[in-house]
């Protein structure tokens, strides 16, 4: 049986993207799941030591993850983890934290105001714009419904 170059190219095209996608999803699942599991662990620790409500404890757990992600960004470790973890570090709050710390560090050399101060929101800005706008819209809807 002989395989021509074209056959082979087609075979590669057929197989490789699919397995890459599959692999990426598995990494994202494991890393993302692991980060959330760690968040749950922090929340439970906080509940045990400070005797506060779960809702607040989850808020503190997110802030702890933000702190860790930014520290790892500063130490130049975050990117090498993100390369392996794919969306596993992007989708959790760690991705949001990194999206601020990374440009803040990178553009500090362009000044504290026009560099660090402005570029810190290059990705977080849109997230806040659309998230906050959606929340105001939602608030208006429930406010109007309550009037009737």
């Amino acid at each position, binding site marked *: 049986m002989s395989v021509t170059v074209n056959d082979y190219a087609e075979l590669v095209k057929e197989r490789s993207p699919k397995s890459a996608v599959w692999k990426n999803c598995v990494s994202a699942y494991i890393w993302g799941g692991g980060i959330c599991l760690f968040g749950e662990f922090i929340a439970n620790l906080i509940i045990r030591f400070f005797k506060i409500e779960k809702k607040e404890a989850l808020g503190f757990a997110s802030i702890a993850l933000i702190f860790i992600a930014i520290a790892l960004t500063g130490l130049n470790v975050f990117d090498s983890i993100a390369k392996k973890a794919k969306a596993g570090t992007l989708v959790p709050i760690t991705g949001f934290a990194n999206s601020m710390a990374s440009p803040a560090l990178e553009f500090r050399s362009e000044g504290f105001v026009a560099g660090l101060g402005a570029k810190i929101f290059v990705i977080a800005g849109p997230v806040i714009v659309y998230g906050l706008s959606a929340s*105001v819209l939602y608030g208006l809807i429930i406010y109007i419904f309550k009037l009737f």
Partner: protein
Amino acid sequence: MNYLFAFLTGGALCAIGQLLIDKTKLTPARILVAYVAAGVVFSGLGLYQPLVDLAGAGATVPLTGFGHVLADGVREAVAEEGLFGVLTGGFTATAGGIAAAVFFSFIAAVIFKPKDKSE
């Protein structure tokens, strides 16, 4: 049991994000925006709180959880303050996370050296 659901739910949300990156033209920045907006919508429809009750950090740590906190904050603020709450609820509820990210990033940018781009 909580830990299992936290892992499974958080992992699934991340795997969906990865699938969107690989299969569509959504960039990582757009994924973040889409997740937060989706969190507001799902929370508004009453679908997200049950997931938080089940999976804890598995639902609050992914950015959809950020959207849920926005929506939850607005819901509470409108109930307590009426029309003014429409504007204050979202930011008030998420203020801690945003302030933490801004402040820690600022400190990190001051004390750490940026990555060497020649590497």
